[in-house]
């Protein structure tokens, strides 16, 4: 896959992208969480 034979490497390659995409999704879903009940801290 992707010109890389060893699955231990191409899985890592793909996981890098997936985890970054995961961060984007998490940030979007929780964009407005955690602001209100914390005022005055």
């Amino acid at each position, binding site marked *: 896959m992707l*010109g890389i034979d060893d699955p231990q*490497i191409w899985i890592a*390659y793909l996981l*890098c992208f997936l985890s*970054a995409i995961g*961060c984007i999704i*998490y*940030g979007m879903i929780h964009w407005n*969480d955690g602001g209100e*009940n914390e005022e005055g801290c």
Partner: protein
Amino acid sequence: MAVSTPILGIAVLIYLMVIFYLGWLGYKQTKSTEDFMVAGRKVNPLVLAVSYGATFISTSAIVGFGGYAGAFGMGVLWLVFMNIFVGIFLAFVLFGKRTRRLGVNLGAVTFPELIGRRFQSRFIQGFSGILITVFMPLYAGSVLIGGARFMETALNIDYNSAVLILAVIVAAYVITGGLIAVMYTDALQGALMFVGMGILLVLTYIKLGGVVESHQALTNMAHLVPANLAAVGHTGWTSMPVFGSPTWWTLVSTIILGVGVGVLAQPQLAVRFMTVKDTRSLNRAVLSGGPFILMMAGVAYVVGALSNVHFLATRGVISLDAAGGNIDKIIPEYISSAMPDYFVIFFLLTLLAAAMSTLSSQFHTMGTAIGHDLYREFLMKGKIGKTVTVTKLGIAVTIVMSVVLAYILPFSVIARATAIFFGLCAAAFLPMYTGALFWKRMTKEGAIASLLIGTFTSLFWLTFVHAKEASALGISKMLFGVDTILTGTWTVVDPILIATPLAFLTAIIVSLMTVPSPQEHIDLCFKNSAINEMHSNTVEL
């Protein structure tokens, strides 16, 4: 090099003027100790994320670990995954929120103070301060080496002068501006790094014929692995080393786990969480933090590995040979020989930014470790005395230590020295930091025991067992007549795998055997904790 000196000079000058302007803005806004230490606790989420990322990723990652990928291949991509999943996601979502809360509740302004106050122990604060002061120069020295090696290779500046130039520039604005200056300049530097690394990736893939084609070309080079590296487990640049071989252990235990896990307990990163206004800022910062790390570390390691294809095509050698055997020179050599001149200049600014953003935070952390944690809280028992002077003096002393290390450390050292520091932080700080945030039953004695066990087991392992450091230090040889007191696989297992579990175990056992902290103190630490986030995952016994 064909890079035009006047153009380069102008570019660097403009860049430095902008940085100093931001530093000056930070200086103007710095009115209180809290401003200097934690930027007044009201930093914008994007600034937080980019500043965190720019501090996290330095020339050590780009030049040092990128070079490591050039020598040992893409296995180090697992570290990128760890950097994003552990270093961003877990760090912000699990640790960040609680760190911010605890920091606010206890009025802590540094990482050692956060832990010290949580466990009501000036010893913890003072000892952590000493640990940071003594060992962080190893990491700061590595970052200096990374920047200086690039200046040496790409610009033909003498290596020793390059180290000095870099150190003086950073020192100037950290000493004056405090953390507001550090974070705003970090954000600008982060933006610059993002663009620089993006261009580097695209140019590299285009130059080498495309994504799949370049990977395939690298895969096809497996037979070119030098015999001495093949003998220790190197199998090629797109495959993992032989399971259990010395190269495998170094990659997995020192590089991937050491740095991947150690990031959670990095004082200069944890203090960032105490700078934001609310949990929402941390959630939002995750969004930009993940892709930022991907673009930094991911690009550096992929490009580092692919540099082999370039050097084979142009000079008929692998990267390690093209860099004269010095891993730390692979990336500088690749950029200056494969990239167009204008990009070499731009990339120098990128690296300068990467080095400065990390160094500034390191110096800030070391300075406050000496001035605030060690002098004010531990020695003066909280009296202010000459804290500001001692802090600035502390910054100056640690800069000198880092520069000296940058001069005396050997070749191919960046990735290793960085990993040693990260591993030490994991063993010494992670158990008590985790306990401080997640385990109300953890006691002061448990925390102190884990701090001491983690620290000294790590140092013992480095001095007497882990072959690379033990034989270089020579202490074991002097005392016992052997390079390492254990043999076989033990000598390639990183201290983090031994010291961190031991420190965790110590923390749990000693805590359960000692008297819990007073309930009022625990209530103070965890008060006003957002009901939904606290109750879901606090371990209570």
